[in-house]
């Protein structure tokens, strides 16, 4: 059981849109083991963004349970969720979401800042993370001095710097050309091979194809959940 990083039971999420209630998730159950590489797919409106926000602890469910790395996070208050996001989750966004005025190094240090890590230790770990994604020579560059692929590598370094339980990527190649996309996917594969649990939300089949397991959402429910036939062996 301790092998399970994520346990989701009958998760629902409803939004009030004026007088109407929109059911974005209608009861999702999902287990993800340590060192899995999972892609969550689905057309727009399928609830995949809602599920990602819940997995990422940016949102709380209307009902159901969500256990992340042994803690039940579905009922946690705001500040406790912030701590979980800080310790357990590494986000990689479609639009990179780097702080524009901070250097690559400062961006990578940011989660450690909120984790209360000392300045010297922050620096050391941020440098190590940047080396790990191959940006050891770009640490003092600002995001606008880096290419799209390099920016996403900085974001990946930032996601990894706190050794999170899961790396949660939301359309990580959505803003990149296909060559750069392949490059970023190879980074994910390397991390996966090193033992990192990776969860990727995407609507692109050829990106999802890199994952070992594909979860397909439709109308707020899981339509299929299967190992990737073409998949890369774990």
């Amino acid at each position: 059981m301790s092998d399970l990083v994520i346990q989701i039971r009958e998760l629902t999420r409803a939004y009030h849109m004026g007088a109407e209630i929109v059911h974005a998730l209608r009861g999702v159950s999902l287990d993800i083991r340590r060192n899995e590489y999972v892609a969550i797919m689905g057309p727009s409106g399928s609830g995949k963004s809602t599920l990602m926000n819940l997995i990422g602890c940016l949102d709380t469910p209307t009902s159901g349970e969500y256990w992340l790395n042994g803690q039940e996070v579905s009922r946690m208050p705001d500040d406790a969720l912030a701590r979980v996001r800080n310790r357990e989750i590494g986000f990689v966004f479609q639009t990179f979401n780097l702080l524009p005025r901070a250097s690559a190094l400062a961006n990578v240090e940011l989660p450690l800042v909120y984790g209360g890590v000392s300045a010297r230790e922050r620096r050391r770990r941020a440098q190590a993370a940047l080396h790990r994604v191959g940006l050891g020579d770009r640490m003092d560059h600002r995001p606008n001095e880096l290419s799209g692929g390099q920016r996403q590598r900085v974001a990946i370094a930032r996601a990894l710097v706190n050794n999170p339980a899961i790396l949660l990527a939301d359309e990580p190649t959505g803003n990149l050309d296909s060559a750069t996309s392949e490059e970023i996917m190879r980074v994910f594969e390397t991390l996966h091979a090193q033992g990192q649990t990776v969860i990727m939300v995407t609507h692109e089949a050829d990106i999802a194809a890199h994952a070992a397991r594909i979860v397909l959402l439709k109308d707020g429910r899981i339509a299929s959940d299967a190992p990737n036939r073409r998949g890369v062996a774990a």
Partner: protein
Amino acid sequence: MQIKDAIGEALETIRTQKLKSFFSLIGVLIGVTFLIAVVSIVQGMNVYMEDRFANKLVGLNTFQLRRMPNFSMGNISEETWREWARRPRINYAEARYIEGKMATPAIYSRYCSQNLPVSWAGKTANGVDIWTADAPMFQIKHLDLEAGRVFTPQEARLGQAVAVIGWEVGDKLFKGADPLGKSITIEGLPYRVVGLVSKQGTLFGFSLDKFVVVPFDSPVHRVACSLGFMDELHIQTENLASMQVALTEVEELMRMQRRLRPAQENNFAMQTAEGALEGWKKISAILMVALPMLVAISLVVGGIVIMNIMLMAVAERTREIGIRKALGAKRRDILAQFVVESATLSTVGAAIGIATGIGLAFLVRATTPLPAAVAPWSILLGVAIGVGVGMVAGVYPATRAAKLDPIRALSQE
């Protein structure tokens, strides 16, 4: 979170948006400038008034017995003026009586003055204060001699035509030549110069060296005073405590001589240095009450402007707030970031205000006779105001930032 980073962010904002930042800080800047400048000038004036004004014009441990007060501030009614004008002048008999009956040791000098031209060898100094006084006047007024001597008791008693001249009179008439033994002309009569007083400096830009002292009974006396009367009797005691005793003694002796009944008010005045300062004290008290109100108004305006700037910053940086929250920033981290940023902005404004305030105070000192002394407490207060206004102004925008929903904040373009 890390205060250093928030301060850095604020300084970066100021650096990249100099003009906008300047306008946003101008309220706090003006408020603090005003505070520092006014406090400096009032403080400088306090020192000046006590050190120079009171002690030069009246003298230390000294008071003057007069017909009416000579430093009176504020509105004096028509009746008061008429009452003062009806009062008898101080006469010789009264002065002699006081000198004879006083128990407190003191020195005395009768005094009258008149503005007259003084000439020597075809040169004339106009508007010179001619003092007719007794010899102790030099001691009472702390007039040290640069050359020569004061008049002798014999010269004083006989009312001989000898003069001790002020520094500026000597400079004007003799241009560096030795004035001693020369014969200057006052009211058509020759006076022999026996002494030269060292330089006294200025008071509010007016020279304190444009005077000539002659014996009280010398010929010019008939122009300066009515016969048998004096403008003032100067009385100096050894210290402040004995001066207080002397004041009550003189009051009693005068009331006795003038046969005033207990219900009747004094028909004479006793002017002390303290009394001369009264008017100034009123003015400075008013300034010190009005100042906080004026400063408060500009600070309220300044605070509102900063609050607006911070609300704009929160709106512009919504996505950044979302990123920070996704990476683990708690509400209070975001709150602290924006409060510190706001306080930093405001403190920079206050710092500039302190600098311009000090500059203004020194400018006033350099270009006007008004003195200025920067009070250290006003600088500390200025900094505290900067931090305080910034923090108060930052709370509301920072609260809004802290409450942002991370998902919505992240989807902001």
